[in-house]
Structure formats: structure tokens, C-alpha cells
């Protein structure tokens, strides 16, 4: 498991530091001198042993100093131990360990792999990532209270919370946040108005693209009718936000009309969605009324009455692939017959 919060170091033998190497050489020289002095009867055994212990103690002191400074002292401890046990041979062994653990070029690669792993820049499965977030306590607090309504906070909250909400709207924008943003734009608090204006300016540039994406999804004949309607409703919110550029807004509204009409037609053929059909038809009729397109309205009502009178039932129709770019060119109209 990955623990990005806790930096696991790559597993390897801790290298001897340069001061450890100096210590190892010093210990080797001292131990060789002691052995030579003892063999040549220059030192009695107890004195030679005592000197040997002093050398080991000095090395141990080096270890303790590192521990006190919260540094890795394992290499120093190892050196002290091998010198204590094996005298000059131990010191030689320490030097050998130092040679073995010398930094090499390959370490850089290992280090970068390790860094990539802890920075989560390597490929890990969604499950691993999720389990890691749970293990490190980074998931949402499930015991926390329910989030507050954004509009409620912007009407009644304190300045701090209002700013937090506007930050969330900016970073995780959704069409449903537009009413809250509009509230913030006319807030009594200058600080909130300024921030809301900054948020509006930030998202305004993306609204046309968002509306287009929603309408493209809605126009896809493979999209179920209810999902298509949800996409159209989303695009309607963007168009009604007052933040879209006029030409983009007009284009979106034209497409919305066509897609709504198409959805009415598809729903009217479906027995299983009477409520949705009625709701969508009402929305479409309201739009036709608002636009004073009375001829279209009469045509729509005649078609519905005729279908109702003859009790037409759903029958599958051949689906036709509609290229995305053709959406803007062709505006579907309600079909006159089922």
C-alpha cells in the first residue's frame, strides 16, 4: 500500500558517512598499533584491552551523538560493534562496508522511482488509491453534518462561509450552482460581490462549451430520453444564467427548442413515461408561447390530440446517427405523426 503522507525511504543499507569512514581508518590504525605493541611486549594485556575498549567507546560515542541529533546512527553503531568484536579486522570490515554502500549513479534512478511512487505519479489502481486515502484519513468525514444549501449560506451565512461556497462554485462548477452565484453577485457584502464577479468571470468563458457538450450529449440518438432531457435542462440553465455571450446564448436556445421538440416526439411514442412526457410538453409549450410561435404551438397540440384520439402506441423507429456538427445546422421539429 502506498502511504503518500509518510515518506517511506527506499530499502537499502544506510551508507557510512565520511566521518564514519575517517573513524574506521582511525580505528584500524589504532587497533593495528595496539596489536603490534602487545606482540612486541610494549603494552601489557590489560592495558591493550583497555585501549581497545576506549577505541570502541569513542565509536559508540559517535553513534550516541547522532541519535541525540535525531539522525540515523545505524552505520556508526555497526562500526563500533565490529571494531569491538574483531579489532583491526572489524575496522577493515567497516571500511569494506563503506566501499560497498558508496553512493552510485543507480541510486538516482531508484530515488526518482521512489519519489514517483510516493508522489502518486505512477499508475495505481483506483482501488489502491481509494484504500490509501482511507488509510491516511483523507476521505470525506462521514460523521460530519450534511452540507448546507449554497443559496442558504449565501443568504444567511457569515462572510467566511460565503467565500468558501464561492470557492467551491468556482472549482467544482455545476449548472445548479448558478442561482447561488447570482445571489452572490448582488450581495450586500462588497467582498462577496467582488469574489462572485471573479467566479462569474472565470466560469463565463466555459459556459458555451459546457452548453454545447450537454446539447451534443442530448442530441445523441443513443442517449435515453430521460438523460437527454436532463442534458437539455442543464443547457437551459446555462442559457438562462445571464452570463453567456449573446450569440452563444441564441445558438443554444435554438438547439434547446429543437431537442425539446424531438424529446416530446420520442416520449409521445413511449407509454412508459407519461409524467415525463407531460412535463416536457408543458415546458416546450411554455417556450413556444414565450417566443410567440403560435403556429408551432397549434401544430403541436393538433398532433397530440390526434395521437390521443387514435390511441397510438409506441413502435420502434430506426435510429439514425447524427453527426455532432450537424446539430447546429438542423433543428428537429415535432413529428406530425406517430
Amino acid at each position, binding site marked *: 500500500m502506498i502511504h503518500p503522507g509518510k515518506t517511506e525511504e527506499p530499502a537499502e543499507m544506510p551508507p557510512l558517512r565520511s566521518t564514519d569512514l575517517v573513524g574506521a581508518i582511525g580505528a584500524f590504525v589504532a587497533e593495528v598499533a595496539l596489536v603490534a605493541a602487545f606482540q612486541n611486549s610494549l603494552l601489557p594485556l590489560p592495558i591493550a584491552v583497555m585501549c581497545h575498549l576506549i577505541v570502541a567507546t569513542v565509536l559508540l560515542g559517535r553513534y550516541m551523538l547522532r541519535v541525540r541529533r535525531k539522525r540515523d546512527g545505524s552505520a556508526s553503531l555497526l562500526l563500533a560493534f565490529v571494531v569491538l568484536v574483531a579489532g583491526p579486522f572489524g575496522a577493515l570490515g567497516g571500511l569494506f562496508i563503506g566501499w560497498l554502500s558508496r553512493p552510485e549513479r543507480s541510486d538516482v534512478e531508484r530515488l526518482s522511482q521512489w519519489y514517483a511512487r510516493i508522489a502518486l505519479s505512477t499508475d495505481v489502481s483506483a482501488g489502491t488509491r481509494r484504500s490509501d486515502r482511507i488509510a491516511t484519513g483523507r476521505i470525506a468525514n462521514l460523521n460530519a453534518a450534511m452540507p448546507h444549501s449554497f443559496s442558504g449560506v449565501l443568504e444567511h451565512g457569515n462572510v467566511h462561509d460565503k467565500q468558501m461556497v*464561492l470557492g467551491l462554485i468556482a472549482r467544482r462548477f455545476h449548472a445548479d450552482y448558478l442561482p447561488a452565484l447570482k445571489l452572490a453577485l448582488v450581495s450586500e457584502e462588497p467582498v462577496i460581490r467582488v469574489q462572485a464577479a471573479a467566479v462569474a468571470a472565470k466560469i463565463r468563458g466555459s459556459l458555451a462549451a459546457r452548453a454545447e457538450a450537454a446539447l451534443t450529449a442530448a442530441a445523441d440518438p443513443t442517449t435515453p430520453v430521460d438523460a437527454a432531457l436532463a442534458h437539455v435542462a442543464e443547457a437551459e440553465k446555462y442559457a438562462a444564467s445571464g452570463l453567456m*455571450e449573446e450569440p452563444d446564448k441564441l445558438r443554444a436556445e435554438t438547439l434547446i427548442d429543437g431537442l425539446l421538440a424531438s424529446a416530446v416526439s420520442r416520449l409521445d411514442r413511449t407509454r412508459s413515461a407519461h409524467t415525463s412526457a407531460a412535463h416536457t410538453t408543458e415546458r416546450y409549450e411554455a417556450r413556444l408561447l414565450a417566443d410567440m410561435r403560435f403556429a408551432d404551438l397549434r401544430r403541436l397540440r393538433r398532433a397530440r390530440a390526434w395521437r390521443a384520439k387514435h390511441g397510438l402506441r409506441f413502435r420502434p423507429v430506426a435510429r439514425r446517427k447524427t453527426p455532432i456538427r450537424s446539430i447546429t445546422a438542423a433543428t428537429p421539429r415535432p413529428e406530425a405523426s406517430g
Partner: protein
Amino acid sequence: MSAPANTYSWNRQSNEPADICLIVEGCYPFVPGGVSGWIDWLIRTQPELKFSVVSLWPSPTGINPRYAMPDNVLSFQTIYLQDFGSSPRRREMIPSGIDAFSRALDEFMRRGGVDALAGVMRTRAQMSPKLSFSRLLNGPAAWDIVHGMYDRRMPHGSFLHYFWAWRALLGGLFATLEAPLPKARVYHTISTGYAGVLAARAARETGRPMLLTEHGIYTNERRIELLMAEWVADTLDKGHNLEDDRTDLRDLWIEAFEAYARTCYEGATEVITLYEDNQRVQKVLGAAPERCRVIANGIVVERFANLGRAADDARPTMALIGRVVPIKDVKTYIRAAHVLRQRMPDLRAYILGPLDEDPGYVDECRELVASLSLDGCIEFTGQVNITQYLADVHVVALTSLSESQPLTLLEAGAAGIPFVSSNVGSCREIIEGRSDEVPALGQGGFITPVVAPEATAAAVEKLLRDPDLRRSYGETLRTRVNQFYRSEQAASAYRQLYAHYRALD
């Protein structure tokens, strides 16, 4: 004493203490307009005083100064916040007392305040051996500090992200705390942030008075940036919960800037801003009400006094005066012109301002004009002498998303032209009058919501269709600007402040 590697400085005369040390961040003398222009104005309107200037920058920019140093500037010094020191040449011992220093830093970054700043300086002085701030940031001791602060502050979050945020925040702070201070009788900072911390440090170390003048509220601007920033990673999943008290990177950054601001407000002898709304925010952020005052900016009104007026029967004309950049929301102005042109087909709408700052945005505006068929109505003039245009303009409009105290509003007012402005900065105060205006002069135009082309169009239309209302509002605005927003009034207010605090021993 030689300057550390992260500073650039020159002295006109070496040992003379300045009367005023101005401390500025990210503007003068390298960025034109706005606060830089104000600083240049301030120095030049106080020729009897000697100034030194400390300018804080993230890193060397290679930009040439846009302002020539006035003769009364004795010294100039830059401090680079993110280019602070380098790794020590050899390994260093970890000083004793590092834990106390780490805790003091933690306290300062969380809560700020002059006492917390003193705690940082004291615990650093008590370390043995005493290391410089750059060695504390770049040497082995940094590990002990960052580790301790991370464990206390953000244990749930990503250490890697924390580390880099820590480097950025403390790099700036340490650069500020280690920089040499010019000698001066009064220290005057033009924002909170790092400049504010340096000013608070100067006041603490020298015992001299420190003034703060804020045009925009620095902490609030940073907070807005940070809350919206995509570059700050969310390492904790807080969902939409506003009450989750776990600290994440965004909180860390915001808290740091709030702590810096609190330190500056506490250390300041006077907290000045341009208008009342800003003052309310300053108080919320920690400024003591008894130290707060408003000194509005001013203009040379005589320059606009005799420009003449657009005739009633002339082609109805409105103008937006300003750079064509997103913050001015020129698109809302264009959309307002579109709405208005449907009701007044011979409308003319000027956009008087430079086009070179954001060419992409200018192109978008031109496209919008073309798509709305406003080519014969809207005219982009580029940078012009506005006095040559104001005589043809009936109404000036401003659709900015953010302003502090726009000079264009004062200039239009001085020319007797009514104004329609979005509700930003001090626009309401200038157009409708301050709460303590005696006698109340009345309205000088209309205030509209931000990003509201219909409302802007309606307000402009009202003024275009009613010559009497237009004249009456224009005169009101002219009277108000003449009474309260003259350049010499602002200069005099600062002269008196400086004289008072320079005299203190």
C-alpha cells in the same frame, strides 16, 4: 554590512536616515499604473521629505523600472522572496532549541501578531549555534522544522505538498525577516502580506511608527485567488462540507496570509484605506478601529474643469474609460451597448483605453462587437488623451468586476459628466456620497450590479433621455469631486501624518 544575495540595492547617499521608508510588494517601480502610480505621486508631492524604498518581488524579473526615481529618494532596495539563499556548502550541526523555534513559527503562521513575530525572533536568537534564516531554510535544520510543523498542522495531508508549500511560504517569510532594514523615521507599507511583515518587523526593531495604506485589501485578494485556484491541490476530500476542520493546503496558505495581515495591523500605528467599505474589511481582519482612517485619492481637478459639455442634441454618446482587460468586464459594457442600441439606434459607445495588455481579450471583445452588429456603434480608440473625448460624451460607464477608487470616475466627475458604475470599490461612495457627507450632495449617477448589462443599459438610457437629470447629476458629481477628491487634499493629509510621526521620539 553587505546585502544578502537575495537583495539588490543602491544608495544615493549612504548614511543619512530617510524620513520615510516605503515598503511595497510587487509593483513600484516596475509595474506601471495603479498603486505604482500612486507611490510615484506620493513621493513627488512631498519634495521636502527624503524617502527610501524597499520593493519586494518573488524573484528577479529582468524588467526595467517604469518610473524614474525622484530626486528625494535616497535609497532603493529589492528583496526577492522566492530566491532565498542556497544550500550550505558543508554539513551543519542541528542547533539546540530548534523545536522551540519550530513551535514559534507554527504559532506565527497560524495566528500571526506582533507577539508571535517576537517569539520567532527570540527563539531563533536562543538557538545554539545561532543560524541565519537562509541556513535554517536550506540546511539540515529545515527537516526538523518542517517535520514538526507538518505533524502539528497537517498530519492528514500529503507531506510532499506540504513541504513545497512550506518552502514557498517560509522562504518568503525568512527573506523578509533577514533583509537589512534601511534607517528611517517612519516606515510606511502599501499592503499587508510580506511587505506588512517587514514593516511590522521594522517597527518592532527600531521602535519607530509604522503606517499602512491599503488600496485593495491584500489578504482578501489572496484569499479569493486561493479559493479559486486550481494549482492548489486538494489533498483531503472535504466534499462540500464547510465545517470540516482538517487543515489542507488551501487553508494553510490562507491562514498564513491572514496571520501576516494580523501582524501588520497590530504593528501599524495608523491603518489607512481609500474608502469606508475597505475599512470594514480591515477591521474584520484585525485592524483596531481607533487606528483606522480613510484618506481618499485625489486628482488635479483643474485639468478637467473647462472641457465643455456634449450638446443635448448631439449624437447620444457613452464611454468606458479603461484598459481593455477582463477585470474591467468590457464585454458587459458591449452587451449593454447592444441592449441600448435597440432602443437608441444612433447610440455611440466609446471604449477609451489601451489595447495592448491582453490582446486575446481584445480580440474576443471585437468578435462580440461584430457578432452583435455593433460595428458602427462601438469604437475602440486605444490609449488616448481622454480630455479630447470627454467634451463629446454624455455619460461615462464602468462595468468593472473589481476596483478600489477608479480615477476615471473622479475625472469624469471633475468634467461634470454623470457616471454609471458597477457596485465595486468606492464607486458607490463617490457617486452617492459618504455616510458622513454634510451636507449630503445627492446622486452623481447610478450604481448597477456587476455583470448586469440590462441594468447598465437602463441606467445609461435614463441619463441619455433626460438632459436635466444628466446635468443635475453631473454637477453633483463635479461638486463632490471638487470638495473631497482633490490631489492636494490627499497630499496634505499625508504631509500632516508624516510630520506628526516624524516628530515622535
